[in-house]
């Protein structure tokens, strides 16, 4: 009986809300936090990434080299009005699980307007092997999620933000530079 009870508890733990489990960042999981489709969706991978690299090579050869080493750039922006209940808690849960999974915190901030910003990096030696941005912006009524998969030169993070319109990345690099980190 005790063994069955223990097994049942373990099973209950596995079936608990996703935020309670340690998990790698998952865009499909993010979609479930919202009842509607994203307002903005970008999926850059494979041949298209190589195209972006070629397009940038003449003017920004370092940026082009970095983009060539990426496996994907994914952006999802949702309207906060489509958010299911408990969005902020769920996002904090994702953030905690990423920290437990070895991701490094670049930015973790609560804005004056009640918004939350999280920027996480996956270190691999001197380089970064993944980047995630999660930003809730009540003032604009938007929630933005960015995932970059692949080897990233830390010096190029800000340029990624400006090229692909991810303000949070640019701001995060600015904050890091001001903090001397």
């Amino acid at each position, binding site marked *: 009986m005790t063994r069955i009870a223990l097994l049942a508890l373990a099973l209950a733990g596995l079936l608990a809300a996703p935020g309670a489990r340690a998990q790698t960042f998952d865009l499909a999981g993010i979609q479930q936090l919202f009842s509607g489709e994203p307002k903005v969706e970008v*999926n850059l991978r494979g041949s298209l990434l190589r195209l972006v690299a070629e397009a940038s090579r003449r003017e920004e050869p370092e940026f082009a080299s970095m983009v060539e080493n990426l496996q994907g750039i994914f952006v999802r922006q949702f309207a906060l009005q489509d958010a299911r209940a408990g969005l902020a808690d769920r996002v904090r849960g994702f953030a905690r699980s990423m920290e437990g999974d070895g991701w490094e915190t670049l930015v973790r901030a609560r804005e004056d307007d009640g918004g939350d910003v999280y920027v996480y990096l996956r270190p691999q030696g001197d380089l970064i092997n993944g980047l995630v941005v999660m930003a809730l912006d009540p003032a604009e009524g938007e929630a933005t999620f960015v995932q970059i998969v692949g080897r990233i030169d830390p010096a190029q993070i800000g340029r990624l933000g400006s090229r692909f319109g991810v303000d949070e990345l640019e701001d995060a690099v600015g904050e890091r530079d001001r903090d001397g980190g």
Partner: protein
Amino acid sequence: MRTLPLLRFALPFGVLAALLIAGCASLEVDRLRYEIAREHPEVKIGEGLSMSFGRVSLGFARWIVGASEDDEGVLAGLVLGEVRRVRVGVFPLEGTLDTDRVTMPRRLRRLVERDGWVPLVTFREEGEAGWVIYREQGDTITDLFTVVMGEDQLVMARVSGDVGAIVQHVLQDGEHGLPSFRARVTTDDAAVEEAAVELTD
């Protein structure tokens, strides 16, 4: 001189040439237009223009631009050489799109869910919406399909061919750059904005 028989002989070829040059209406584009109009009764989509150009008409166009020696003619020839088929539609649009309700058109969704197409970009805000999907075979992007519902126009374009090579030719031409996902503010724009702020202050 036997002009009339010559004309009778040449006329069918002339008509055929005109059709080939002009292209044919695109059933796929028209069907997509009707589908979008049904899904969004809050906007009125007018008749507009839909065209489809296949290998023959594109080959003819390549032959024509091939005679041009200027840079744009050369670029056009290179681009046309990589295109297998083009389907285009431009339709006037009246009314305000309900962007809270707009979703990917069913036809595009079927391409994504059943035929291996991949969504590249989707956006919907401020009365406008758009979708760009593409298909790859190996390392080659073979098809690109764009649908944009703007403030006053519905534009659709489907290009089949070596899309990557098309973009490469355009970029190597040097006059065009790959668009960023956000318009960059140029130094001139910033100066104009600054001047405007100073005036209002």
